[in-house]
């Protein structure tokens, strides 16, 4: 019989990279949110209930531009639809969790997804509980980061103009991480091309919907060559089942 502490000691070391990343990015989020006039209480609440890095950064922009529930829904959907594909990978693995399954699904961020794929419990330890502890720890790091950032941001007297760039930098870094794997490059370039063209044609407010549609159309039209390239590359350089991003982004 393992104690609760046993699970904590086994899980914690795996989560250290996420600890650094989440506290840092969470703080950046909290400072950004405070710069738009929303205090640490909101940062805490959003960290607890939304728990999505890119999503929360995008949410700050939406909150700053006023009350618009429809935009909030559409943009959140666009930014987070990748979760659908993480879920597909976890369909089987989350089955034995019972009630905790709902929390596991809620807490399935990019990094937690990565840890579920890469971290293994010590011999004889109950797997479900080990991964549950990982999920809870990651969530706590994120909440602490968001709240600290909110407190810091409200207290800061320096100008925060330009801090929004932290989000751009985050996505650039994730993009570069994905670019390392050659089979990701064609999809990445299609995404880049489609969204640039759509931004020029449809303007800043509508291009997200337009580019999502354009991407799905392009991917269906070129399904054959693209999937061939995917499988060829995968055969040429066998790799473990990597998640799309293992870096700092909840």
């Amino acid at each position, binding site marked *: 019989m393992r104690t609760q502490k046993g699970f904590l000691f086994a899980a914690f070391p795996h989560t250290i990279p996420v600890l650094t990343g989440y506290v840092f990015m969470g703080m950046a989020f909290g400072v950004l949110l405070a710069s738009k006039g929303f205090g640490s209480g909101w940062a805490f609440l959003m960290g607890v209930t939304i728990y999505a890095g890119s999503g929360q950064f995008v949410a700050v922009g939406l909150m700053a531009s006023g009350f618009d529930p429809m935009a909030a829904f559409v943009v959140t959907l666009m930014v987070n639809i990748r979760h659908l594909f993480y879920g597909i990978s976890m369909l089987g693995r989350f089955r034995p969790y019972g009630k905790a399954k709902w929390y596991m699904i809620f807490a399935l961020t990019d990094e937690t997804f990565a840890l579920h794929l890469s971290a293994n419990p010590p011999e004889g330890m109950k797997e479900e509980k080990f991964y549950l502890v990982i999920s809870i720890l990651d969530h706590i790091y994120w909440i602490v980061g968001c709240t600290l950032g909110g407190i810091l941001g409200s207290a800061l007297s320096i100008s925060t103009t330009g801090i929004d760039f932290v989000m751009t930098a*985050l996505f650039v870094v994730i993009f570069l991480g994905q670019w390392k794997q050659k089979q990701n490059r064609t999809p990445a370039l299609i995404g880049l091309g489609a969204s640039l063209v759509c931004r020029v044609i449809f303007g800043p407010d509508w291009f997200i919907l337009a580019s999502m549609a354009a991407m799905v159309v392009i*991917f269906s039209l070129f399904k054959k060559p693209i999937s061939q390239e995917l499988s060829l590359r995968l055969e040429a350089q066998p790799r473990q089942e990597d998640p799309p991003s293992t870096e700092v982004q909840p």
Partner: protein
Amino acid sequence: MTAAQTLIMVTIFAVTTFGTRILAFVLFPAGRPIPKFVEYLGKVLPFAITAMLIVYCLRNTVILVSPHGAPELLAVMLVVALYLLFKNSLIAIAAGTVAYMLMVQLLFV
């Protein structure tokens, strides 16, 4: 926004985000096969969406008048260079953001 409106917005963010996470489990309950096309989209879309999010972040950049998007371009180049040099996301993000803030606050005012 009033506090109530903010709360409604946050609720929409939270519920929609959870919706995207639970969608797979709703669409494909135990035993139901996953369509090949969905599996294929699952492999390619995440990378395309990352690229789209970069464009999203920079969507309001002014190109046609001064400073012609120079702070954005320079800061993105710095992030790329630092990431390739140090292989460390946090250094690249932190330095890039500070550089951008300095540029828009002091250089390109």
